C-alpha cells in the first residue's frame, strides 16, 4: 500500500489540482479545494449515541469507522470486515484506469488512512438495507477528509446499501472513494443521499465492477450541497450485467453539482440505463458528463442515457454532455438531453382547470422530479426526495 500511496502522491504532484482545461473539470472549479488541510484522525468531538442506535447502520465519524456500530449490525456474522489500508490483494484494490488520471483521486489514495473493506459471505441473506452514516464533527472545519471503502459482494448476494451524510453545516472537503465488486449473479442497490447543509465540498469516485448476470442499481438524491462532484464508473465486464443509474439533483443559490458517469460495456448482452435530472434555481449550476463506451464484441448491448435539466431561473446554468462511443455492430443505444424552463402550455392547461399558477408550477416541478423518484429502487430515498422537494420549492 505504501508503494501505491507514494506513486499516487507523485502522480498528484505531477498533475496538480485539476484545471478547467481538462474535459472532466471544464465546468467545475477546483481552486477553492486547495485550502483544506488533511484531517488528523483522533478522538471525535461529537456524541454519536443517536447514530449508533440506528438499526443496521455502519457509522463513520470524520471518515473513521466506529467499531461499536457493529453491535447493532444484524449481519455482523455474515461479513468479514477490515481496514482498506491493510488490504494486500491488488485485485481487490485495483481501481478504474479512468480514475488513475484524475489528480484528486490520486491525492485521495495518497492521503487516506480511513475506510473499510467489507466482504459479504457467500450464501448470506441480507434482506434488510444496510445504512452507512457519515457523521462529521466540528474538527472537520477546513479539513480534507479522504476515505476509501471497498465492498465485495459474493455470488448471488443481494445487498442494499443506503449512504447518508450528517455534516452539520461545516466547511470541509470530503473525498470519498468507493469500490464495489459485484460477483456473478449478485445484486447491488447503492443509494446515496447527499445533503451537506450547503457548506461542504464533496468529491466522490465510485467504481463498480460487475460479474456475470449481476445487477447494479445506483440511486442518488442530492440537495443542499455547495460543491458536489461525483464520478461514477460501471464496468460491465461479464455477459448479462445490468446497471441502472437514477439521479435527482436539486440546486439553488450558488450550489454546483457535477455528475460524471462512465459506463463501459465490455461484454455482450449487458444493459445500462442512466436517468439524471437536475432542477436548478437562482445562480446554481449543474453538469452532466455521461459517456457510454460499447467495446468491440459487446453485442446485444442495450443502453440508454437521458439527462434533463429544468431551469427555474434565468441565471441558472446546466451543462450537458451525453456521449456514446460504439465499437460493436449489433447494439441498441440511445441518448438524449433536454434543458429548458417549465412548459408554458402545460401551466396554461392546468390554469384553465382552475388551478392557480403557483400551484400549477409546483405540480409541474414535482412531475418532472417524479419521473426519477419513481425509478428509485428503495423507499428511503423515495420518501426523502418527495418530502424534501416540497420544502425546497417553498424555501
Amino acid at each position, binding site marked *: 500500500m505504501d508503494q501505491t500511496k507514494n506513486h499516487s502522491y507523485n502522480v498528484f504532484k505531477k498533475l496538480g489540482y485539476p484545471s478547467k482545461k481538462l474535459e472532466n473539470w471544464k465546468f467545475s472549479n477546483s481552486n477553492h479545494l486547495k485550502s483544506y488541510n488533511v484531517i488528523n484522525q483522533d478522538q471525535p468531538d461529537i456524541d454519536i449515541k443517536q447514530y449508533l442506535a440506528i438499526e443496521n447502520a455502519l457509522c463513520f465519524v470524520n471518515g473513521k469507522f466506529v467499531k461499536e456500530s457493529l453491535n447493532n449490525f444484524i449481519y455482523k456474522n455474515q461479513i468479514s470486515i477490515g481496514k482498506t489500508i491493510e488490504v494486500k490483494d491488488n485485485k481487490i484494490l485495483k481501481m478504474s484506469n479512468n480514475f488513475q488520471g484524475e489528480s484528486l483521486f490520486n491525492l485521495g489514495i495518497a492521503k487516506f488512512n480511513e475506510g473499510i473493506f467489507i466482504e459479504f459471505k457467500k450464501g448470506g441473506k441480507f434482506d434488510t438495507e444496510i445504512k452507512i452514516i457519515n457523521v462529521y464533527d466540528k474538527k472537520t472545519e477546513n479539513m480534507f477528509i479522504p476515505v476509501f471503502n471497498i465492498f465485495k459482494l459474493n455470488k448471488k448476494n443481494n445487498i442494499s446499501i443506503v449512504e447518508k451524510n450528517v455534516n452539520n453545516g461545516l466547511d470541509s472537503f470530503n473525498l470519498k472513494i468507493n469500490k464495489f465488486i459485484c460477483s456473478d449473479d449478485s445484486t447491488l442497490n447503492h443509494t446515496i443521499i447527499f445533503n451537506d447543509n450547503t457548506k461542504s465540498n464533496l468529491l466522490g469516485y465510485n467504481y463498480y465492477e460487475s460479474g456475470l448476470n449481476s445487477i447494479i442499481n445506483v440511486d442518488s438524491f442530492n440537495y443542499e450541497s455547495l460543491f458536489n462532484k461525483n464520478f461514477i464508473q460501471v464496468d460491465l465486464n461479464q455477459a448479462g450485467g445490468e446497471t441502472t443509474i437514477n439521479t435527482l439533483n436539486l440546486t439553488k443559490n450558488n450550489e454546483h453539482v457535477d455528475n460524471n458517469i462512465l459506463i463501459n460495456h465490455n461484454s455482450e448482452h449487458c444493459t445500462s440505463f442512466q436517468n439524471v435530472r437536475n432542477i436548478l434555481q437562482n445562480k446554481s449550476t449543474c453538469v452532466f458528463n455521461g459517456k457510454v463506451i460499447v467495446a468491440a464484441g459487446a453485442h446485444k448491448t442495450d443502453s440508454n442515457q437521458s439527462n434533463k435539466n429544468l431551469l427555474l431561473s434565468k441565471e441558472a446554468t446546466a451543462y450537458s454532455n451525453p456521449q456514446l462511443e460504439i465499437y460493436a455492430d449489433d447494439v441498441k443505444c440511445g441518448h438524449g438531453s433536454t434543458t429548458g424552463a417549465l*412548459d408554458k*402550455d*402545460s401551466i*396554461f*392547461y*392546468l*390554469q*384553465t*382547470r*382552475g*388551478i*392557480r*399558477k403557483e*400551484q*400549477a408550477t409546483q*405540480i*409541474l416541478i*414535482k*412531475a*418532472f*422530479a*417524479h*419521473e426519477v423518484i419513481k425509478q428509485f429502487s428503495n423507499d428511503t430515498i423515495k420518501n426523502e426526495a418527495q418530502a424534501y422537494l416540497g420544502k425546497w420549492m417553498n424555501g
Partner: protein
Amino acid sequence: MIKIKNLQVSIDEKDILKGIDLEIPKGEVHAIMGRNGSGKSTLANAIAGNEKYEVKNGSIHMNNIDITEMSVENRALSGIFVCFQYPVAIPGVSMAYFLRASINAHFEHQGKEEMDAVEFLNKSKKILNELNLDDSFLKRSINDGFSGGEKKKSEILQLLCLNPKFAILDETDSGLDIDALKTVANGVNKFNSKDNSTLIITHYERLLQYINPDVVHVMVDGKIKKSGDMSLAKEIEKKGYSWLLK
C-alpha cells in the same frame, strides 16, 4: 350568460379575429363552423385567456362580469371551460391527482370543503363508465400516450367532473370513429342543461346531428358571416364553405 362584443385578437402581430359579436344565453347550445384558419380556435383560446393571444379590442362578459382582463384560472373558476383540440401531455401528473386538484380548486373558490378521496373516486368512476373508459385511466399521466379518442374523452371527463357554466368544445369531434363520436356526444348532451351554455366549434355537421344546437354560426376570416339554425349546418355539409366567401 356569455356576451362577446367586437372582439379583435391577434397572434404574433397577425390579426385573426376581426370583430366578433356573439351572445349565448343560459340554456342554449351554439355551434361555430368554419374553414381551417378562419379563427375558431383563436376564439376559444381568447375566451380561455391564453396570453399568446392578444386582445386588441372588444370585450368578453360572463354573467355581466367583464372577464377580458381576468387571469386564466379566475376565468375557469368563474365557470368557463374549454375542451381543447390538442390538449398538452404532462408526464408525471396522474389524471386522478389533476382532476381532484381541479375540483378542489373550484370547491375552495366556492367556499366548500375539499372533496375527499372516496367521494372523488365514486364520482369519477361513474363518469369513466359512461365514457367507456377503464378505472385505470385515472392512474395514467395527463394525456401522456393517450390515443386521439382518449384525449377527447379525457376532456369530456374533465367537463363532466367540473360541470362549468359555459363550455367550449374545440373540434372535439375531430379524429373520432363513429362509436367514440357517439360516446362524446352523449357526454356533451349529459352536460347540457337549462343552467349552462355550450359553444361547439367544428368543421362538420356530424357531431351536431347528435347534439342539435339552437344556433349555428359560420365564421369567415375572423368574423361571424352568417347565423341560422341546424339547417345552416346541413347546407354547409352539402355545399361546402365557398358560397359563403363571396
